[in-house]
């Protein structure tokens, strides 16, 4: 019945990761879905050019909260370029256009979000976090 709410999604919706404030924020991004009011803030801190810590502050439905949390799990310890590649791959997956040069396996646990594709109206909930991430890295001139 509830294919949308994969076990892993439900788990991250209930107890999302990376919810603690950062001591230093090197870059911050924000996205809001004007239509429903859901929002995500992504704060990043870097060390030696890689994302070494993340704070996610997401409000709204379970899909938004779970995808933000899973995204954070997967982008940690990447450099912003690799992070952007991962996000692009995730967006391609959700928009059903995975090109050959973007192997899906780099998505790791974020790939569970694919179940949301069965519910087209909710895909935007699963992609809000990517806008916040893009906003966070847009000023980095990578």
């Amino acid at each position, binding site marked *: *019945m*509830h294919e*949308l*709410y994969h*076990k892993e999604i*439900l788990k991250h919706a*209930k107890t999302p990761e990376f919810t603690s404030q950062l001591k230093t924020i090197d870059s911050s991004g924000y996205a809001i879905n004007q*239509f*429903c*009011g*859901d929002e995500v803030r992504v704060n990043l801190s870097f060390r030696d050019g890689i994302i070494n810590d993340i704070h996610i502050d997401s*409000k*709204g*439905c*379970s*899909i938004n909260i779970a995808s933000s949390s899973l995204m954070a799990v997967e982008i940690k310890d990447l450099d912003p370029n690799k992070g952007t590649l991962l996000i692009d791959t995730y967006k391609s997956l959700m928009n059903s256009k995975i090109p050959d040069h973007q192997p899906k396996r780099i998505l790791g646990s974020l790939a569970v979000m694919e179940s949301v594709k069965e*519910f087209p*109206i*909710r895909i935007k*909930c699963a992609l809000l976090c990517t806008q916040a991430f893009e906003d966070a890295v847009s000023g980095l001139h990578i």
Partner: protein
Amino acid sequence: MSKVFDVNKIRQDFPILDRTINGNNLAYLDNASSSQKPRDVIQCLVDYYENYNSNVHRGVHTLSMEATDLYESARGKVSNFLGATDPNTVVWTRGATEAINLVAFSWGFKNIGAGDAIVVSQMEHHSNLVTWQLVATRQKAELRVVPLTENQTLDMESLADSIDEKVKLVSICHASNSVGSINPVKEIARKAHEVGAKILIDGAQSVPHMPVNVIDLDCDFLAFSGHKMLAPMGIGVLYAKQEILESMEPFMRGGDMVLEVWNDKATWNSIPNKFEAGTPNVADAIGLGAAIDYLTEIGMDNIRAHEIELTDYALQKFNQFEELDVYGPTDTSIRGGILPFHSEYVHPHDIGTILDQEGIAIRTGHHCTMPLMRSLGISATARASFYIYNTFDEIDRLVDAIEHTLRYFSTGKK
């Protein structure tokens, strides 16, 4: 089984209710957004396009005259339905939103000036708030927003305090689309008139569901939409008192609204045509007439009684959910068939998606009342809303589905 009328017989008039959604019978509980259409209304559109279609008020040929007769007779039906004395006080619009904007542009900009005040409430639909924000800003007038009590009824003391000599217009919904409260608009009209102000009643959620008589309410303006009362989308009504309409400037310019035109000037047609520039929505106006015939046949008192029964039943069933906040008054004599609820454990969109899996259509979100949501400290609710074809059985399904959803999100068990 409803004690008021035979709902199963009514359901047979609505073809869409035979649909299955995700393998379940459709339970359509999103009537405050838009209602379904009975076969009579659908057939009336087909009949119009197959037999009468042509432009109105413009030709001497038979079709044009027949179309004009049907169109103007629909206006007469609306006028009778509202208890108005003259069909020319009924102006066709696209819906409640356009009707409110018409008043703002044609009446508001002329009659509301610097230092004047407009009174609205905290439960207004954006269409009856944002429009007055524009008038207030441009005219340097004050917009007063009357707060609500703790069960989301209008705070009548604050209302009385905010209606003083500065007020030129009180614009208020008869029934709230978001929390269901029914406002004592007759009393509010009297208060407005005492200080020489006009009253606009947003009847989008009352005209479809209960008897509304413009003479009894003594309202200056009444706005509503056809699509929420069994009629097609794209047709609605502004009722206004005759002398007010006569004094108002046109809303839009074009064909049909003019009497005589020169190169440099024009004179205006009489009401209501003065406000109906361009080719109107003939078919849907006739469709609204057919919807009114259907509603009148059942009886607006009966419809209201049926919805009270459903709402009482639903409210009582919802008592079992300790984890849900249900908004609006519990006294159904001052509440429409609207049931908004919120749980801090499950987001409304998640509830909406799971209910959809079970064939139950509800609305989730801010319901075009963002300031109201903010005043409740939430960003969205899930909302079930009822109409003539809804049943106790559908409410049982709703309650069961919510129960599953809450259990699923708290334990992960299906």
